[in-house]
């Protein structure tokens, strides 16, 4: 069990700056996700925590210990690799036993632990086979088994589910969470799949281009994204954005879209903030579930467009609307009756909007 602190951590590959002075504080026993697109620096960060990648500058602390110069083995971490990294010439049993054998544990104890872990992860049937002979799902579980067999201080997961097919992925996701809660070990989980991060993490750190964009609980990140990147990255379907200027409509402040002249009322909660932003161009964002479509013009309809396509997905539906050339995605009931080309009117729940400055990309409301 350990806290992890990253202080001004840098990683450069030659001239390329992969990680640019990030700061993170991970609590003891926490399930912490580092989320971001490919190339954002998340894997480099994790590898530095593990000790298999050298640190260009900055510090990594485990509790009160500076671990910069410690070999991986001394840091007492366990890592599940994206490609599983199983030992090809060894059987599953030997793969699981490897970490313990490497540390000179007595044979009897090793066998005991291997049996335990095999039972927890349902690997009993494949113990005598080699990695090349078992399925991807099994391989993934062996990778996890190798992690937990040692009871380390920290679990590190490097996109362990990215090569698992979606059916198994959802199942495995639950397994990973279960394991972490079983052992209450501090865990750092790297992924590019935002729904995975949202489902698993106690807290998430969103990274892009080597920098931390925002750190917070899934809730905070979802509802109060700090900038356009986070807003756009989290949530599926993602935020819908409208470039607007603030206008005064007979005493009422409203966001007037640059294209199409639609109006979204500025809610009372943020009226003061918007008061001094007249004629400033802002980017207004609304999540798909906070827009209500109607095939008939309503009194409070704010935006109108034409149906582009409707996808009925069983439990819900995704309606894509063409509003002056831009596509807006809306979550609806599964039985919406619009057809491509139909006119549709949209009502936006103003209390749920987020406002961003297109130039700084920051959330105007949270700063």
């Amino acid at each position, binding site marked *: 069990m350990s806290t992890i602190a990253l202080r001004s951590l840098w990683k450069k590959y030659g001239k390329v700056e992969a990680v640019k002075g990030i700061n993170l504080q991970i609590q003891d026993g926490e399930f912490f996700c580092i989320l971001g697109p490919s190339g954002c620096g998340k894997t480099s960060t994790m590898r530095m925590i593990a000790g298999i990648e050298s640190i260009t500058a900055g510090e990594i602390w485990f509790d009160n210990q500076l671990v910069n110069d410690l*070999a*991986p083995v001394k840091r007492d971490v366990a890592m599940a690799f994206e490609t599983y990294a*199983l030992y090809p010439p060894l059987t599953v049993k030997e793969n699981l036993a490897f970490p313990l054998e490497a540390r000179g544990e007595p044979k009897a104890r090793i066998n005991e632990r291997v049996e335990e872990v095999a039972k927890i992860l349902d690997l009993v049937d494949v113990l005598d086979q080699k990695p090349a002979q078992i399925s991807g799902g099994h391989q993934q579980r062996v990778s996890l088994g*190798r992690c937990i067999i040692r009871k380390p201080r920290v679990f590190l997961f490097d996109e362990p589910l990215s090569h698992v097919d979606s059916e198994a992925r959802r199942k495995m996701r639950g397994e990973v969470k279960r394991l972490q809660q079983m052992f209450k070990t501090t865990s750092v989980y790297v992924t590019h799949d935002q729904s995975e991060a949202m489902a698993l993490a106690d807290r998430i750190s969103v990274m892009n281009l080597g920098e931390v964009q925002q750190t917070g609980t899934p809730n905070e990140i979802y509802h109060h994204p700090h900038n356009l990147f986070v807003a756009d990255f989290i949530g599926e379907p993602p935020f819908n954005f409208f470039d607007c200027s603030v206008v005064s409509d007979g005493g009422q402040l409203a966001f007037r879209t640059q294209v199409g002249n639609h109006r979204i009322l500025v809610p009372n909660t943020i009226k003061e903030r918007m008061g001094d932003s007249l004629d400033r161009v802002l980017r207004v964002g609304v999540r798909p579930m906070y827009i209500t479509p109607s095939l008939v013009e309503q009194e409070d309809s704010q935006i109108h467009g034409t149906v582009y396509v409707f996808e009925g997905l069983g439990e819900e539906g995704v309606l894509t609307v063409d509003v002056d050339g831009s596509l807006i995605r809306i979550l609806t009931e599964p039985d919406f009756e619009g057809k491509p080309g139909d006119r549709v009117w949209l009502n936006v729940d103003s209390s749920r909007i987020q406002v961003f400055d297109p130039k700084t990309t920051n959330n105007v409301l949270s700063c």
Partner: protein
Amino acid sequence: MIRRWLPYYLTLPSFIVPTALTFAWILGLYYSLTDFDLRYGIRNYLGLGNYADLITRSPAFWGSVATTLKYSILAVGLSTPIGFAVAMLLSQLTGLKTRLIRTIMMAPLCISPVVATIMWRIIMGPTQGLLNYGLNLVGLPKLDWLGNPGIALWSLVIIDLWLSVPFVTLIFYGGLQSLPKTPYEAAQVDGASRFFTFRKLTLPLMKPFLMIALLFRAADALNAFDTIYASTKGGPMRATYMLNIYAYDNVIRWKQLGYGLAIMVVTYLIVYAVSKRLMAFWPR
């Protein structure tokens, strides 16, 4: 699978040369069953007579078998671990150094064994050779590398090492480079010492390459001829008298083609047997 006959007609002719060579080999086999003398041609069919003679009435044969085996065990037994060690060292390097060293390593591969042997003759010269000069400098006595029956075989092994270690190194190097890298990172995290990782991970993964190296080396060592002919020709006092030299002498010096070929067949059988034995260890 492509249209039927045309490709066969066009590609199978290219098997003519290998087929002809196989035929020559079989012919050689036949000749070994006769008393083919280069002066008189074939006079009698001897069946296994030549072979019987070899086994029972030819101390030179058994001597050459012993020498060949001794040489081969030394050559293979030394070049393989050394090549492996050098390959491991090489794979620890990065960048420019690797390319440079690799290029240097390839030099012995481009050189005819005969030319290399000549080169070593110069260096191993008893009076003017560089080696003895070096020994002298350090206070050690000069050695008659190729003229002393006790040392001559070892000198040949040294020459063989010069020629073969680069080859073995390159095979193992290619092998090491082809190994997956992430299991090694996992091993680091799992806390395995270098030696433990080597024993449990590298060695088993390198088995196929080890097999290749051993097969080639064994065959080359057992079939050695060029280097011996160019240096000692089997001497001094038969210290380096190997099977191929024995066969050569029989055919060229004593004109006994049939007998010489019998020796060759036996050599081939030995190589075949050794290869088979080695293949049994193949990890399939």
